[in-house]
């Protein structure tokens, strides 16, 4: 039930599915959650999918990235893709052009540099993310301070981009992980496929050349970054839910109890049908949001919030039901289903809870006019 973005997407999806086939916790028997080989991702062109050809990238868009993100979700991929590619590359692309930026994009596409982006992760406000850091100017000295929790893929990044308020205007500030005054506290979570950390800056001195403005409206740039994060998580949840459905269908077809495959029992069959029905809607919501974000539609946050709220919830239900229908086997570490449930539940809370997104959507109803 994947969305159909045409032949190019089908090919990208096919290649990705083949390459990732053996990396799912379902096939590695839950032994490890080893990150995907970063150089392999680079050589596949997946790190520079959205990087302009001039900087060695593929010059594609978010629609193509979404195909990959869904595939990564299918295998619950442990890779710093969210931090470095979905957010890092995009953050740089949203900046006004400068040589430092172009150079970095080149390195990102080549896989020789990794970055992370510190956005507000937990409770997004309606419409506009609040910068978790702020800039202070003392004479010619620039300092940044603030805190962001649960930032993806910070550990191991060569550089961290902080979303900071410069006199209320959102900007990005690049800091080295080793910068004096910068503290990185890994925040291990139950989901071992994701790596999060708190980033605390206490008067970190910054090079004026590392303070960058967004192209066009700074608020729009910051909002766009946040929307990418939300939708990336929705794509991930769609992929993992689909994999959970397929694994369950395969299991209940093979597993016999009382002389029949358990998939022939209505309780099991109808639960699987509900998975397919749920995924069908999720797939539409993601497709609509991806189209809106890719084509820079104004108001794209609406389909993005819809997708994030719904898909991230349904994926938890489906992963949970998958464990239930696998019976005792599904509850073992070895079978690997747990990795999907944990990731699905984490996805639900990353970049805005379903309740927060619905609140954001419902705020549109308040006017007396049409919605």
């Amino acid at each position: 039930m994947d969305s159909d973005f045409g032949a190019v997407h089908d090919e990208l999806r096919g290649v990705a599915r083949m390459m990732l086939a053996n990396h799912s916790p379902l096939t590695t028997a839950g032994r490890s959650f080893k990150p995907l080989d970063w150089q392999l991702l680079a050589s596949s062109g997946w790190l520079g999918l959205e990087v302009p050809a001039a900087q060695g990238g593929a010059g594609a868009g978010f629609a193509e990235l979404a195909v990959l993100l869904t595939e990564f979700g299918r295998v619950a991929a442990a890779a710093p893709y969210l931090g470095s590619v979905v957010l890092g590359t995009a953050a740089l692309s949203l900046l006004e052009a400068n040589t430092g930026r172009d150079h970095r994009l080149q390195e990102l596409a080549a896989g020789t540099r990794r970055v992370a982006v510190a956005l507000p992760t937990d409770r997004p406000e309606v419409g506009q993310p609040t910068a978790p850091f702020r800039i202070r100017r003392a004479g010619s000295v620039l300092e940044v301070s603030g805190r962001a929790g649960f930032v993806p893929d910070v550990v191991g990044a060569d550089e961290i981009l902080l979303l900071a308020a410069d006199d209320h205007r959102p900007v990005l500030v690049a800091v080295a992980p080793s910068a004096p005054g910068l503290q990185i506290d890994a925040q291990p979570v139950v989901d071992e496929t994701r790596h999060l950390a708190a980033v605390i800056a206490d008067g970190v001195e910054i090079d004026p050349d590392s303070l960058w403005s967004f192209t066009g409206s700074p608020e729009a740039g910051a909002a766009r970054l946040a929307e990418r994060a939300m939708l990336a998580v929705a794509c991930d949840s769609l992929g993992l839910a689909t994999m959970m459905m397929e694994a369950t269908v395969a299991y209940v077809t093979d597993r016999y109890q009382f002389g029949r495959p358990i998939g022939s029992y209505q309780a099991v069959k109808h639960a699987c049908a509900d998975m397919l029905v749920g995924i069908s809607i999720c797939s539409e919501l993601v497709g609509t949001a991806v189209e809106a974000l890719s084509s820079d539609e104004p108001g794209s946050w609406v389909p993005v919030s819809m997708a994030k709220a719904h898909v991230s919830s349904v994926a938890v239900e489906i992963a949970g039901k998958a464990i239930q229908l696998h019976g005792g086997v599904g509850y073992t570490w070895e079978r690997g289903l747990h990795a999907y449930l944990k990731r699905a539940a984490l996805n639900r809370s990353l970049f805005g809870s379903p309740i927060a997104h619905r609140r954001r959507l419902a705020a549109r109803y308040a006017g007396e006019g049409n919605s």
Partner: protein
Amino acid sequence: MAVPDRDLAEFRSTVGDWCRANVPKDWRRAQAGAPEEQFVAFQKAWFQELRQVGWAVPHWPAEWGGGMSVAEQIVLYQELAANDAPRLVLAFVAIHHAASTLLVAGTDEQRRCHLPAILDGELWVQGFSEPDAGSDLASLRTTGRREGDVFVVNGQKLWSSGAAHADWCLLLVRTDPGAPKREGISYFLMDMRTPGIDVRPIRNANGESHFCEMFLDDVVIPVSGLVGPEHGGWRVAQETLSAERGMTMLELSERLGRAGFTWLLEACRVRGPSGDRLLDDPVVADRLAAFEIEVAGLRSLCRRVVERHEAGASAPAEASIAKLLYSELLQRVMDFATEVVGLEAHTQLTKPLSSGWESGAWMLDYIGSYEWTIPGGTSEIQRTIIGERGLGLPREPAAR
């Protein structure tokens, strides 16, 4: 069949303009609780209005008066919904089931006889279900005994919606009682004026009487009324029944979004005696947002289903998915609306019959929603179809 986006936008504004000029402003109020004859007259008139602009049977082939692309049909139904045009509920079986039966399996003569007549207002009824053949339609027991050039039919049909007004009937009859149950059934066109047909209305849960029982007592149908081969009617029914479901689901999902959800929002914006609005209750707002999301997903899915069907790339069971989603979402929305609107939701005692499955009379609409979760394959049957055809899960062992 690709229609340029610009042309579609133009068509959209054409339909919108036409609707604003031609949809009777007060039809809902006028039709709510209106007597049966008034409903029939209104439906027939509206059908002719749509026919004049070419929008009554857009899905028919061009040679018979249709010929609209799927992309244009989508726009048409979106705009009809957006402008709250009356639905063609009375002619529904005629323009969908009867037409697709004739087009797929009828003879040239049958087509020439009936398709133009339908455009002129000929009404049809389905004679499929029986008291003991509901979900298990193939177990039907109405018999047809061949006597030379005619069949003599006896039995009882149930849930024949609109039989009281119908001119013709699509009839499934067991003509070979010795054959396995799906192989002894024939498909007929039956003239409702034939002697021996007794139609009795059945009141439904809302007190309306569009369902009927039909008693057939030695009803004589000529062999020329057969559609498809003798005893080969089951396959005809399978092929033709669900033909237009995709576009119907699209139309209904658009109406659920444009009429149903929008009215619910409006009801939640009304200020109560103490100046508060239901909308100001965050619990209500949260549920509204959840419904808006699901409706958006459903509408998108229905568009995709008709596009894929047109492209010959239908996913298995996706018509069942759309039907299950629409019907259960409709039910949940109406149940919720009844709950939050509260006692006032119970004071609306009538609703117009020409609407989609939402009228703003929330309690009646909630009850009416069972007309979607039960007929045409109950939700339970749909889940089995989705599991078996959509996911390839094994069938249940047959009963002894």
